[in-house]
């Protein structure tokens, strides 16, 4: 019935046409797609830098690029991937699109602010892009002083301005989400009926709102130091460069949770849907998101175990870092318990969710290694750290992003993606990922420092494996890019609820009408109540 109507029915995509209707849109769904296009570009840009890095590392000598260029490559890779891809990735695309729908709202509380946030990201991105084209920047994504303030002769200012501006995009998105969750829930949508995706975004928004301003002021001080000789971090004046590190990590550790929490929210939705069971321990999972957000603000010192921090401070930060593992583990255990006796199907989103659980667990556990003072002194600034955070950010966050993208693709576009290709690419990504990053744990343990492009002969085998894995990974990322675009035209028409999922977003047509719902929904059930959905869903897939 819906299948036949889809051509004529008005929805958010055909309600208006033309460039202007997109660039001036206030519709959270369209803004979500604008973000999607933007961050995809940045993802492939960051990927290009990574490719060059991996090719250089094929041989122990520096033969492709000079040391200076290599420094720029890993800096621009990090800056692009973290600030312009991962931070906005899930919240600004899937969150923007689905958060209002999941709570039964017509839009976010501040649609114009939402559009402004996108423009800020674009403008910030252009600044950084300009810096990259003009000659690049070589400080590392961490901008440590005094190198970034006094010594680097590269485009620090333009890059930092870009990140500063993009930071406000992130702040305003978080603000918008918090107000929306507080004030825009549909009748009957109580806090404890909200999908866990929404809880995860609530926690993420708290971090965005509380953490990002600190990064902003820190970058501002770096800028002032470079531009006006205001020497807040300058040791020559008696200032303290380590203060910069404190301020930077006060944001940047919580920021890793900006990247991972939304992915956890996605995984909760997928696991529940494809095992047809409510999430085990819903309340625990919801609160674990919030407690990760809170605890995440107390552990920044684990990035500074070897930079003049006192042993006592180190011990406290070490202990607190172990503590964050608890809410993270709660999630993993509860997902696993949800699967127990579930009726599991292995659709693509579920494959990504499984990938997420496995790789996030690896990343989290190696995080505990690093949080242990003695081990960290041995492996800090080695490839072990590089492997650790890539397991979480690439293995975790990007898996979550791709899983969510596949899960909601039918809703966003009204088309199904080709399942066979999708499964193939999910598998390719999983294998390619492990081949790329697992050798890096060993490399790091053996003593290969990060950020070097010349290395002893004996490390070559592992580096070659890693580069080989990266090529597989690259293919894995290209495949979805192609078939998702292909599906826009040739994909099977999607029904309203192809997965038999429970969220409100599935109770409206695919793609959704301009104002999301024809009637404001009235919520009478807990989240993940499959008994009611089974009655409603007639045709599946």
């Amino acid at each position, binding site marked *: 019935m819906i299948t036949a109507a889809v051509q004529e029915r008005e929805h958010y995509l055909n309600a208006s046409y033309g460039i202007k209707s997109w660039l001036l849109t206030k519709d959270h769904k369209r803004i979500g797609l604008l973000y999607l296009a933007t961050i995809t570009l940045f993802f492939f840009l960051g990927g290009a830098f990574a490719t060059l890095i991996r090719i250089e590392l094929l041989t122990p000598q520096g033969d492709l690029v000079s040391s200076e260029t290599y420094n720029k490559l890993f800096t621009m890779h990090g800056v692009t991937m973290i600030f312009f891809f991962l931070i906005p990735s899930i919240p600004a695309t899937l969150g923007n699109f689905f958060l209002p729908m999941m709570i039964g709202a017509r839009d976010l*509380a501040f649609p114009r602010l939402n559009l402004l946030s996108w423009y800020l990201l674009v403008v910030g991105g252009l600044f950084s892009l300009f810096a990259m084209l003009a000659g690049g920047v070589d400080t590392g994504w961490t901008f440590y002083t005094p190198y970034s303030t006094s010594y680097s002769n590269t485009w620090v200012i333009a890059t930092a301005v870009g990140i500063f501006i993009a930071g406000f995009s992130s702040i305003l998105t978080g603000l918008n989400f918090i107000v929306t969750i507080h004030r825009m829930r549909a009748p009957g949508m109580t806090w404890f009926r909200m999908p866990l995706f929404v809880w995860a975004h609530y926690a993420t928004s708290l971090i965005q*709102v509380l953490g990002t301003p600190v990064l902003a002021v820190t970058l501002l001080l770096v800028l002032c130091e470079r531009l006006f000789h205001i020497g807040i971090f300058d040791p020559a004046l*008696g*200032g303290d460069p380590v203060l910069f590190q404190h301020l930077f990590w006060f944001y940047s550790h919580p920021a890793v949770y900006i990247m991972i929490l939304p992915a956890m929210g996605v995984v909760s939705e997928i696991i529940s849907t494809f095992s047809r069971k409510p999430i085990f321990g819903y309340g625990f999972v919801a609160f674990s998101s919030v407690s990760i957000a809170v605890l995440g603000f107390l552990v920044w010192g684990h990035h500074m175990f070897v930079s003049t921090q006192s042993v006592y401070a180190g011990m406290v930060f070490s202990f607190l870092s172990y503590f964050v593992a608890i809410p993270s583990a709660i999630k993993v255990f509860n997902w696993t318990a949800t699967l127990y006796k579930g009726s599991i199907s292995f659709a693509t989103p579920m494959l990504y969710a499984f990938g997420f659980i496995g790789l996030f667990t690896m990343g989290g556990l190696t995080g505990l290694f690093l949080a242990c003072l003695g081990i960290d002194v041995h492996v800090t600034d080695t490839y072990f750290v590089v492997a650790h955070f890539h397991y979480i950010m690439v293995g975790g966050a990007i898996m979550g992003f791709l899983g969510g993208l596949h899960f909601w693709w039918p809703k966003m576009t009204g088309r199904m993606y080709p399942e066979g290709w999708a499964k193939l690419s999910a598998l390719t990504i999983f294998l390619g990922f492990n081949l790329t990053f697992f050798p890096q744990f060993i490399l790091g343990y053996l003593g290969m420092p990060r950020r070097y492009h010349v290395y002893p002969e004996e490390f070559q085998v592992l580096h070659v494996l890693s580069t080989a894995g990266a090529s597989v990974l690259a293919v894995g990322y290209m495949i979805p890019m192609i078939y998702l675009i292909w599906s826009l035209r040739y994909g099977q028409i999607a029904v309203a609820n192809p997965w038999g999922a429970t969220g409100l977003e599935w109770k409206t047509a695919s793609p959704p009408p301009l104002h999301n719902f024809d009637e404001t929904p009235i919520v009478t059930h807990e989240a993940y109540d499959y008994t009611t959905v089974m009655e409603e869903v007639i045709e599946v897939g």
Partner: protein
Amino acid sequence: MANQAHEETLALREQFDTEAQQKDASTLGMWIFLVTEIMFFGGMFLAYTIYRSTYPEIFAVCSSSLNVYIGAANTVVLLCSSFTMVLAVRSAQLGRQRAIVFNLILTLALGFVFLGVKAYEWNEKFVEHHIPGPGFHFEGIAQQGPAQLFFSLYFAMTGLHALHMLIGGGILTWLIIRTKQGAFTAEYMTPVDVAGLYWHFVDIIWIFLFPLLYLIDRHLK
């Protein structure tokens, strides 16, 4: 309940169901924004705290070179501007358009008086070579570095505050224009209300800056 029933107005945008909901949302949004501002200024206050506790004497000596009387007078100016802002909000609640405009203009004027005085003070620093950089010199102190740190913080903090005043001035100007166009009524005056919150916040920041920058030598005497 039909979904897209209502016409969009300023007081009731299409994403909201009721005026009260919209007002609530705007106010909450501004409060959250102010929290982000606290974190933003917080970074500088942290740096200040650390350096002042590292170099207490030098900070006190440098602080005493600032003109307390001018600073105090400026504080009074800013407090008065907060008062006129409150009057503007009250007039808006009562729907008195001309009173809104009058009080907003007064607030704006006081804001500019503050900035004028600030500019005068900064200029004094130029004359005295108290601008951080190669030309910096502070009489009678052996360690020039920490003295520069004090003035770095002085300029960073008052500069950031002044920037917020300028933004506030822009908001006030916009409000004045909109009020003259008759945008606000007793029923719909959220922008005035919310701008008021912002203005008071900027004011409060100064209430912290003034003692921290101007008065610390008194604490040691």
